């Protein structure tokens, strides 16, 4: 053990800085890999299927329940002021600007992000990534950039799907169950949702897509260089937990920052 606490603090600081630097370079290489031929169409399609199609069910249930809860709670709050007619705009704005992009990113992190992290972590500890390097096959182009491209396409689409299902859920709870006028539900939505709101939600979903893939694959890719996670299978499980936590927290922090800047 190292006795000197100042030296330990210094070492921790250095390792945090080098970790950040590594992750920064990793992000650049990941983006660069998207633009360098040859394009890995098969791997891209596989990832599109995994991240996009595979997440449809979980996104459907999350969106339906979120939309229905929003419909019910919105109704109770608005009913106090006799403003039930605002339900449509309240539900749709909350979903499109906030909950759609954030919850989609969080669900994709939990479902696909954890899997991506574990996959790369296992490939790293079993020297498969070293083997790619030794064959002079770029692991970014081969493994990571297709994931980024697939996420950039599927996460915004999943967000749109989330919004639609959520609005339908709000309709079922507010209009069908609580008796809000269907015309006012949709009219309120049409009047209040602007292109700027949709644009904000879309920008968020693109940013979250990059963050999820960056953090989740990056943690797995560097599992061998991270301090304090141990070795072998245990290190992959720890790093996967870390990836999900870091990715989720970053999504929430960036959600606030993007809202503050772009609203």
């Amino acid at each position, binding site marked *: *053990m*190292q006795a000197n606490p100042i*030296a*330990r603090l210094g*070492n*921790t600081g250095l*390792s945090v800085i080098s970790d950040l630097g590594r992750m920064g370079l990793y992000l650049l290489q990941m983006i660069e890999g998207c633009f360098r031929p040859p394009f890995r169409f098969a791997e891209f399609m596989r990832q599109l299927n995994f991240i996009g199609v595979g997440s449809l069910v979980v996104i459907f249930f999350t969106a339906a329940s979120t939309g229905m809860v929003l419909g019910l709670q919105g109704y109770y709050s608005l009913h106090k002021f006799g403003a039930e007619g605002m339900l449509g705009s309240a539900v749709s704005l909350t979903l499109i600007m906030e909950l759609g992009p954030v919850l989609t990113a969080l669900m994709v992190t939990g479902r696909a992000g954890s899997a991506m992290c574990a996959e790369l972590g*296992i*490939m790293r500890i*079993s*020297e*498969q990534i*070293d*083997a790619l*390097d*030794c*064959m*002079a*096959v*770029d692991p970014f182009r081969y493994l990571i950039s297709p994931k980024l491209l697939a996420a950039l396409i599927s996460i915004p689409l999943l967000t749109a799907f989330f919004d639609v299902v959520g609005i339908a859920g709000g309709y079922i709870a507010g209009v069908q169950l609580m008796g809000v006028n269907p015309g006012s539900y949709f009219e309120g939505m049409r009047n209040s949702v602007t292109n700027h709101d949709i644009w904000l939600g879309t920008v968020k979903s693109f940013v979250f897509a990059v963050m999820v893939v960056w953090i989740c694959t990056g943690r797995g890719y560097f599992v061998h260089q991270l*301090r*304090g996670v141990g070795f072998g299978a245990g290190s992959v499980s720890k790093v996967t937990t870390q990836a999900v936590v870091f990715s989720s927290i970053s999504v929430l922090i960036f959600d606030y920052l993007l809202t503050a800047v772009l609203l």
Partner: protein
Amino acid sequence: MNNNSIEFIKVEKSFVRDDGSRQVILDKVNFSIPAGKTTVIAGESGTGKSVTLKLILGLMRADGGQILVAGNDITQIRGRKLKEYRMRFGVLFQGAALFDSMTVYENVALPLRERTKKTDSEIKNQVLASLEQLELLGHEHKYPAQLSGGMKKRAGLARALQLEPEIMLFDEPTTGLDPVMTHEIYQLFAQTQKEVGFTSIIVSHDIPKVFNLADQVIVLNKGKMDVFPSPEAIQWSQKPHIKAFVKTTMGEIYQSHLVE
């Protein structure tokens, strides 16, 4: 014969432990590996044998010193040059490092698909020929998880040999193999080296058997290296740690004593 000699000049490498302290793996080591010959690197676990291989491949960076390969210092090269440099190597990793999501055939064909302009039928012929040579024919559609340890090693070897490397690195090539397969793998090494003439470096615990292949033996111990020009020379070393190493790995050396 090629000119791919490898030379370590005052190479240093250490790691920072989780508690912040430093663990020195290589302490200013000097040695050279002659071209076209076989060098065996031996030593106890955790003495830096695999690290030495990773330094040669540029997968890890040395903290100091120079590594000359064919006269060029490779500690400074990066990017495309590093990639070109690595193309000269064939590597058989400790756990074979086959890609889990690909079949044996796809694994062995990968370097040819990625690094050559060969047609699918040429690749197929070459891959099937080497699978036959390594007695893997009939298993080409299996995934690595369905193979035994020995089969994985052989598939890894087949993959490493596809691009006709100038330098072959073997990280524990026979761990987990039965004696018959070990013998066959060693014969295959000797045979392919004769044909291709690559420089080969074998990291192995399989002492003394692996010495049959060795032209030179390097023993790693506590960050230092002892180089022996032949497997025989190691047995006559007077250094205490080498004597202990020889005794544990090869048994007592026979010496005749006169009873006084």
